[in-house]
């Protein structure tokens, strides 16, 4: 099954913040898939976004929308990869994330990854200091 890439202007603007974002996105995501790799063969973690912990009042709506719209995210390796212990969704993780709407046309057997947002820092920096430092 072939995978095509669409990118929104909003996402394109996200990438202008740092040239390294575009390099990581191309090297670790676009190029490998265009060369024939599946998402399972990528170095970074590719994961459904409805299975991620979501904080705040928008949680239920976000989870529902993410599931209904088939929203995923991928760790692009910005600025570097780190190992992860996630057994369900293997792959290395990084601060840099691309958010992707995945659609599949069964008739043409074509899958489209629509890139809607790139974040250089996936999380606000929160220190679990009580857990880390006794």
């Amino acid at each position, binding site marked *: 099954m072939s995978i095509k890439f669409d990118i929104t202007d909003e996402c394109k603007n996200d990438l202008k913040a740092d040239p390294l974002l575009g390099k990581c996105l191309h090297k670790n995501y676009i190029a490998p898939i265009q060369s024939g790799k599946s998402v399972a063969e990528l170095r970074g973690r590719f994961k459904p976004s409805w299975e991620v912990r979501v904080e*705040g009042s928008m949680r239920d709506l976000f989870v529902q929308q993410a599931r209904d719209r088939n929203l995923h995210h991928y760790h692009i390796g910005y600025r570097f990869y780190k190992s992860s212990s996630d057994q369900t969704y293997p792959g290395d993780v990084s601060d840099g994330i691309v958010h992707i709407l995945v659609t599949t046309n069964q008739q043409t057997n074509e899958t489209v990854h629509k890139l809607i947002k790139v974040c250089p820092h996936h999380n606000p920096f929160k220190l679990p200091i009580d857990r880390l430092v006794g």
Partner: protein
Amino acid sequence: MNTHTQLSKSWTGQFVTFTVATVAAAPLVSAEQPLGSFQAASAYEASTTQLKGFVHQQDEFFISESESKDLLARLDSDSPVTRLPDNLSEEAFLAFIQS
């Protein structure tokens, strides 16, 4: 090989310094990670960026409220869309971003 990690913090005025020390043979980070001081039996005073890299290994990712709001808005955004050509080179992609 056991990996033992020690964290401590100390306050100096309004600043807090985190010191991470590992006492094991296995590095905590991958070879590509530029935090070489995470190597065995080493210690360093973590800057915010460095410590963030470490903490992400310990903590699961999550989507914040502001990020979830922004993503929900983008799901229904009418932002123009471009189909990327097949076999797109890095140079062409970077040029496209800046166009």
